[in-house]
């Protein structure tokens, strides 16, 4: 199995530790990884704002770099959703369709494809609150959203449960949006900030020491609010814990 590793721009620049942990973790799990060492964008901001028509060249560049692998894996739910569900500015050739089907977010890849049973190098004796980013939750189906009826499941939680010492908690509003919403945080900073405050206050009330998520975009937003409010909370990407971070 050969995969391509995609590092989104915001992870590369602002949360490289999440990408490094993901990369090292995949190596530990014996995956053959190709990293196209050229920065490429998935086109998310364009689709998000309604400018799909401008994203054709961007999507084509992405296709040029990431076609032909068994899987494309990325530590980002929003970018996975973008490629899998919204990558329509480029012509839908068989190559493009195949690529879209092979795009995986890291948690899904570990849980569904590799079906990892243990992380013997990991240990995390802390209370962590899981934040399922809305895109990962509702468009990639990482877990059962609270408003849908049916049997409960959570892929990130299932993976984290394999880490010795970890204690998992949830806020009272289990999966309410934290208000990042990509461009929304710039579109309506006041409402976005209020949602962020409510969210991290919920984590704090749940007694968590860490907020863990598969999406660093939400964590950047939440981290900024946590620091502004001076709450005793830290943010961490799920790959860091699974890779053996022991802060």
């Amino acid at each position: 199995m050969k995969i391509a590793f995609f590092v989104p721009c915001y992870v590369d620049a602002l949360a490289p530790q999440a990408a490094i942990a993901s990369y090292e973790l995949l190596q530990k799990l014996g995956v053959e990884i190709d990293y196209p060492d050229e920065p490429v964008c998935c086109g998310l901001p364009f689709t998000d704002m309604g400018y799909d028509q401008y994203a054709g060249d961007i999507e084509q560049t992405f296709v040029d770099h990431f076609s032909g692998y068994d899987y494309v894996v990325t530590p980002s739910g929003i970018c996975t959703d973008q490629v899998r569900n919204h990558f329509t500015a480029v012509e839908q050739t068989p190559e493009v369709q195949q690529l879209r089907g092979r795009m995986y977010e890291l948690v899904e890849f570990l849980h569904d494809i590799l079906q990892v049973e243990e992380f013997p190098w990991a240990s995390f004796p802390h209370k962590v609150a899981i934040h399922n980013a809305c895109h990962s939750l509702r468009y990639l189906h990482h877990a059962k959203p609270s408003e849908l009826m049916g049997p409960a499941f959570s892929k990130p939680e299932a993976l984290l449960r394999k880490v010795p010492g970890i204690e998992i908690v949830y806020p009272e509003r289990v999966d309410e949006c934290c208000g990042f919403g990509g461009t929304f945080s710039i579109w309506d900073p006041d409402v976005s900030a209020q949602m962020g405050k409510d969210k991290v206050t919920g984590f704090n009330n749940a007694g968590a020491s860490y907020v863990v998520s598969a999406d660093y975009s939400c964590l950047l937003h939440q981290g900024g609010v946590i620091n502004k409010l001076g709450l005793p909370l830290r943010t961490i990407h799920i790959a860091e814990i699974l890779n053996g971070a022991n802060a």
Partner: protein
Amino acid sequence: MKQVNQVKNASAFVKDSAHRSSHDKHLWDARMRRDKTAAAIPEWEEMRELASAIKKHTLSNLDTYLERFEENATRNGIHVHWARDAEEHNRIVYDIFQQHGVKTITKGKSMLHEECGLREYLAERGIDLAEADLGERIQQLDGQRPSHIVMPAIHKLREDVAELFAEKLGSDPHNDDPHYLNKVMRNDMRKRFVKADAGMSGVNFLLAETGGFVVCTNEGNADISANVPPLYVASAGIEKMIPGPEQLPLFIRLLSRSALGFAITQYTSHYHGPAEGQELHLVLVDNGRTDRLASETWEVLKCIRCSACFNTCPVFRRSGGLSYEATYAGPIGIVLEPSYDLHRYAQLPYACTHCGSCGNVCPVKIPIPDYVFHWRKEVVEQKEDLLSHRYEMLAGSKALASEKLVEAGEKFTLAALKHTPHALMASRFNPWAKAHEMPAAPEKTFRQWYREQQKS
């Protein structure tokens, strides 16, 4: 018409922590009750799927169903009228009132009446119309539209209502006990009910096979308006149609559970003709619905106006319904209102974080999240977007298609984070900094790390 700036409208509400947190809490509580009652029904998700399929079937055969409805309703003694738009609806209603010499009316809450501006239309013509639903009456007295479909005054606090009732109904301004305020309303309305020349209401469901219609309320205000005066006029959007009584229980089971988390509305009422000695009119209204039916987003017409999407929407709960300056607020509003007036409502589709919860609570499975994308695209294609956005996006699309420029952009961001003085970063020029500390700049990007790894 001037473009609605929902963000600006919401800014006062979000900062008013008393109103905002009350609003947020009560609507979230409704969402939680909904989850609980839905979870008690094993076939809940199957019911949603089925309700969606029934609505799609009915809408795709709407002409036949409307004709069947009219035939059966007429046989039941209901006078059926057709209105192409709001103006025609209002005129028909007014003509009926003219013929009967109607001066006072009590009325059940109706979103269609809001849509048509009926209250204002009749007021201008000297008709004394009283909204008979408590929340809607509060909004009428305050000169505001309802901020929420089933809880029209939920953005207000009890002291706001006490003040309003003191001014308009002469109640004790210092008593803000909701029980007392309800009694003030009841006493005033009871006098109006027995005096009214006519009653009005909206309609929740039209039944084609039996030629009847269904109205759901908790207060019984629509039932009293319908059954006490000698004349009853109901208005229905043509999309309210379902085939008949076999399908109805499915929708009744979904409606109030989705709206408020209760198994049913206290009064779930079915009309198949006028009461003895009464005259019953029903106005079927298009007002843009046939245009919508022919459009890509036709499934908005499945909406049964339950407001579950309002309650779950994290943006709505913190913005308040009035910020949308539209008949329909919240998630359904931001994908419905642009179809009435794209220019006026061009900013509404952006009042959304794409969290996707609205689509999951919708009892008839309207793909609201997909429609948000649709309308953003439409806004851009019809050039109703903000110019600043267009230039940014155009410039960005060139830069981001180039590997070199992406890398330059990342480097610039890091340099900015590292070298910009905190004071400038936290200034008013950076909206993000009002509520966030800026992230510390990492030592190196992943790419730099990777390259170092490859070398060693």
